């Protein structure tokens, strides 16, 4: 009768169980067969998205400087409110302050993971709320080099992924992954190449390839700040269009997390209150 070892073995198992489950979930494929680049890519995207869970809501301001090839500048100023929705895409409200002729115009988006987003535009001159098509994801946002697609949070389900390599990015080490839109018609791109650091999974660079697979735009992101000791948010985003030589610098500021925002502020009634 060798009773004594039984206890330690079981307790070790109990202790290890969560780790095993976790490593089975994350690492199982590597035990059975080497993880495919697609699996690694999906894992990174899923983990990056999971790290942003629970932020609740936030508000911020966006200031854009649009530059053409000759260096002429034009400005955009807007306020952004975002509400986290569990099990679906987030809800967001953008209100324009500049240019002044569109002041008070507001865009309400109910993003969805699977189906097309719902969008309503508020036109203050007519006090009209207009449901608009959300299939214009590849169109320019306010004449800038950003498209609606570039500015919306990339829902994990909207892409398939492929891990390419690790490489240094500044002082950090980045994973380099490709992502491909699931709904090819809904995207302006055939693929995107994304650089994310291994420590915090923050995105530092994205290269956009158009439908003919030529390198159209490059986005570089910097000045990250951390909020509530957890959530990283970009401070500066620079989009360069290699085809036209135009660029847009988007500066985020005045981040505030877990404000008094409620679900009701993201309704059509709330949209009419935006100003």
């Amino acid at each position: 009768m060798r009773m004594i070892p039984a206890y330690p073995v079981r307790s070790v198992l109990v202790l290890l169980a969560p780790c095993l489950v976790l490593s089975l979930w994350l690492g199982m494929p590597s035990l059975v067969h080497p993880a495919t680049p697609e699996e690694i890519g999906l894992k990174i995207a899923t983990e990056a998205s999971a790290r942003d869970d629970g932020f609740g809501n936030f508000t911020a301001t966006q200031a854009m400087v649009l530059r053409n090839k000759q260096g002429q500048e034009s400005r955009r100023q807007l306020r952004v409110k975002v509400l986290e929705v569990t099990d679906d895409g987030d809800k967001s409200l953008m209100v324009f302050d500049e240019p002044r002729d569109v002041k008070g115009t507001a865009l309400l988006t109910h993003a969805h993971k699977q189906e097309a987003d719902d969008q309503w535009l508020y036109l203050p001159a007519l006090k009209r709320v207009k449901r608009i098509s959300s299939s214009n994801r590849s169109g320019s946002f306010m004449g800038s080099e950003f498209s609606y697609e570039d500015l919306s949070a990339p829902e994990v389900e909207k892409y398939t992924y492929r891990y390419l390599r690790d490489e240094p990015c500044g002082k950090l080490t980045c994973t380099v992954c490709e992502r491909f839109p699931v709904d090819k018609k809904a995207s302006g791109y055939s693929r995107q190449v994304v650089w994310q650091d291994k420590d915090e999974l923050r995105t530092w660079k994205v290269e956009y390839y158009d439908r003919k697979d030529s390198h159209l735009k490059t986005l570089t992101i910097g000045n990250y700040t951390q909020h509530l000791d957890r959530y990283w948010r970009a401070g500066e985003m620079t989009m360069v269009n290699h085809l036209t030589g135009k660029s847009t610098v988007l500066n985020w500021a005045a981040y505030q997390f877990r404000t008094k925002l409620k679900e009701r502020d993201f309704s059509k009634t709330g949209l009419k209150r935006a100003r």
Partner: protein
Amino acid sequence: MRDGAARYALALTTIWLAASVLAVEAHAEIEFAAWELSGRVSLESRYFPRTGIDPSHQSSNTNGFVLEPKLYVEDVEGRSVTVLPFFRYDSADPVRTHWDLREAYVLLFGELGENEWEVRLGADRVFWGVTESQHLVDIVNQIDFLEHPNGKVKLGQPMVHVTWTADWGVLEFFGLPYHRPRIFPGQGGRLRFAGLLDNERVEYQSGAEEWHPDFAARYSHSFGPLDIGVSVFDGTSREATLVCVPPACNPREISDLSNVLIPYYAQIRQFGLDAQLTLGAWLFKLEAMHRSGERNALGLQQESNATELRGIGFEDILGLYREEEYVAAVVGGEYTFYSVFGSTADIGLLAEWNYDERGRQALPRRQPLTLDNDFFFGALLAFNDVESTEIKVAFLTDASRATRTLAAEFDRRLSDQWSLHVESSSILSMDPDDIQWVGRRDSFFEFHLEYNF
């Protein structure tokens, strides 16, 4: 310029403002969080290539400007006060030189369990509807017909507007204690599609006249891709019956230039429906309404011919205008081609059909068409450039008569604060039997140079 209407609106709004500010004050200390002054100044010019029907009074061009500042004050709880006055100066028509309090309201809102309530007290503008060729069910506000014949610009309306927002939709109630009559261009003004109106003598069916309490309600909700609204309005019509009373007007010669008609506002009830289905780049739209109590606009010429005209008064003439129930509808769609030909530009194509049971006696919200059986075709070219350059073209054609109009608009931002608007509105042809025949020579070009602050 009808000062009376403006004075009433101002007085009323002041009462509302005072009452609601006091109500708020009684409950809580107000701590102001933000205030903002914005608005626009617009230099405008209209040019009419053809002389008008009344060349001794009307001129072929008019210049002027618009001032529209907006003051917004918000407290820490999100409650706010908005004041938005409007002033237009017009060089040709003293009536078109007018001012209005477009908005002057207190906005309060809060939670009630899972739901939300919102109250707007004061003068405000409310928009209902989905279609582009006309806003058929939109009835809360009177239109500012002096601004543009397309009926899109609206006068402020004193109201108590209560909104209830819940999971099952949005329910709104409107108490409308005061009626704003539509003001028509004066003798020096063009675009007098219905002839000359007596803005000083306004007749009401209700003994309470403009103080008749009107009510409206609307339920709206989004079901996935479908946005739907059902509305009801009970009270003073926003559209006038134009009554031809001798001796100021000769019913036998309805298109006589010297005729001065009297606007009459009946008590009506309107049920409205508006719906839009948004599927990818397609928008499918429907507006429909049923109205009772309206005495129909113009016409009935034969009946008035048969009547002995000497010595009869307003009531006798009014008796000739039949009270008719009727239905009207707009149905159509819009499709947008995004990023056409590899550029950043979008092209939107629109088509709508307008129906009105009253036929050619329908005096519509927008002019100069009767919109009884009319097709609308539109195109919108949005360049999506830094200047937000846009070109819009709209063609309206009567399916059964030879009345056709073509309108084009061009918009471009010149800098962060200046922008340019150019438009043309052409009457390609008009049927002589159309009730708006007097406006047949009033095609025009319009220019705005706008400064936004």
